[in-house]
């Protein structure tokens, strides 16, 4: 948090200097050098996090263009006309023992009433949000694991 505040104040200072056109003095004052240093330190300290965000961002953005595939249509067809209980029994007795997946499948975000209606971007909105939720869920679960594994070094260890 302290690092972040330092980097933010450094950025603000640099921006203000640039805005005022004080480019010549920009590199000469010790205050500016300190600000540069803070920004570089922040980027260096959190490099792995910044890279991770940079590589994962296209994967999230591209979710806006995904479309249902054969399996999604198949399960939507299975589910149509059945209530939750009947669907679950049908899946468990005909498709296998993945009981949690069958519960999860009932959340399939596709419109089931497609009679005379093409799919539109609005119909697919929830479908396209799902990958973002999957990625976020993975990140959160790994964060939970990291919290169970590690702790900050204690005063005695220092």
């Amino acid at each position, binding site marked *: 948090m302290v690092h972040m505040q330092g980097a933010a104040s450094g950025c603000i200072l640099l921006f203000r200097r640039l805005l005022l056109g004080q480019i010549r003095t920009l590199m000469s004052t010790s205050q500016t050098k300190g600000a540069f240093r803070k920004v570089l330190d922040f980027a260096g300290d959190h490099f792995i996090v910044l890279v991770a965000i940079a590589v994962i961002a296209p994967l999230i953005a591209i979710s806006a263009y995904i479309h249902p595939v054969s399996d999604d249509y198949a399960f939507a067809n299975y589910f149509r006309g059945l209530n939750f209980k009947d669907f679950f029994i049908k899946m468990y007795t005909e498709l296998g*023992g993945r009981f949690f997946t069958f519960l*999860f499948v009932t959340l399939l975000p596709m419109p089931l009433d497609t009679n005379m209606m093409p799919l539109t971007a609005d119909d697919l909105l929830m479908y396209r949000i799902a990958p973002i939720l999957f990625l976020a869920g993975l990140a959160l679960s790994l964060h939970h*694991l990291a919290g169970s*594994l590690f702790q900050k070094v204690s005063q005695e260890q220092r």
Partner: protein
Amino acid sequence: MAVLTAYLSFNHPETIYGFIGAGAYTPSMMLLVLLASNLIRLVKRPGKQIFLFAALTGGMAIGANETGLVVANVLVFSVMTYMFLKSHPARMTLLSLFLVLTVFSLAAFLAPGNGFRDATKEFQHEKEFFFALGKSISRFSLNSVYWVPITALTSLLTLEYARRRELVLKPVLASISPFLMVVVFLGCCVLSYFPNAWARGVVNTAFRTVDVVQFIFTTGFICCFLHYFLGRASKERQDDIVFGDTFRYVLIGVFLCTLYASTKAKTHVTDLVRKAPAYDKDMMARYQQVAAASKTDTIVVLALRQIPVTIHFDDIYPDVGNWRNINVPTYFHKKAVRLKEPNRYIEALYGMEPLEKQDDK
């Protein structure tokens, strides 16, 4: 660490972008991670709430897919056995957890649908224990050769980050032998292939299952790596592992070069900027065409102009009789649909492993 691990793990778009495919596999990864996390907390402080969380996450992982079933049981059994050998106070709680998970496992294993699926096809060497074990070991060995370099690099970067953030292992973990951690980790990885090898014999492991194994491998590798080095740091007052600035910048440089050399990162950006919008337009046009067609006609749709491989992994087929072609017209209340000309990308993707496509259902 979390997002980078996820990014490095997925090779097949279905693991994220197909709702049913991702729904069967991605939650199982999350649940296995949460189970491991809850197990650590349970050992540290046995309590009803953590027990319930562990039982719930373990049960759901078992019900997600067969890989989840095997890995959840191996994890809980290993920790329970270790705690019994150590006469740890949490051992009885762990035994109760193992029994609860056994009930979930039986519910998955004895489901009538398993027999129904079994009866539909027969595979060479299916249900042969030693063949399945040998195949699991060989598949893991072959795949891990590709996974080790980038995972080792990520582990080093994560260790460097953890050291700068002054992180150490929780005391409850510091006493566990790193060798034991590695044995359990490798056991989980190898046995992740087992259900597939057992059920489908010689048929190659499905892509999305390989993604799950890679995720388990990447996460497990990083955890074992950090457990070993941060464990040493905890014991020896963190003096022995210090990364100099030069080493750090070299590490960062190597990592950036690896990312640059990887076609994966470039493909994601190209797909996002250029191919995906054109693909989206073509797909929307298909919906319009299918909706406007008569209920009695066979609809012939045009090939896609652009294929964004990051998100595209399935298409309509030129053969009306292909079982995968049935789902789309049924959904739209139409008679039949077919593709005018074959999708060469999909053919190439699954062509190397033709049974994969037919039997992955």
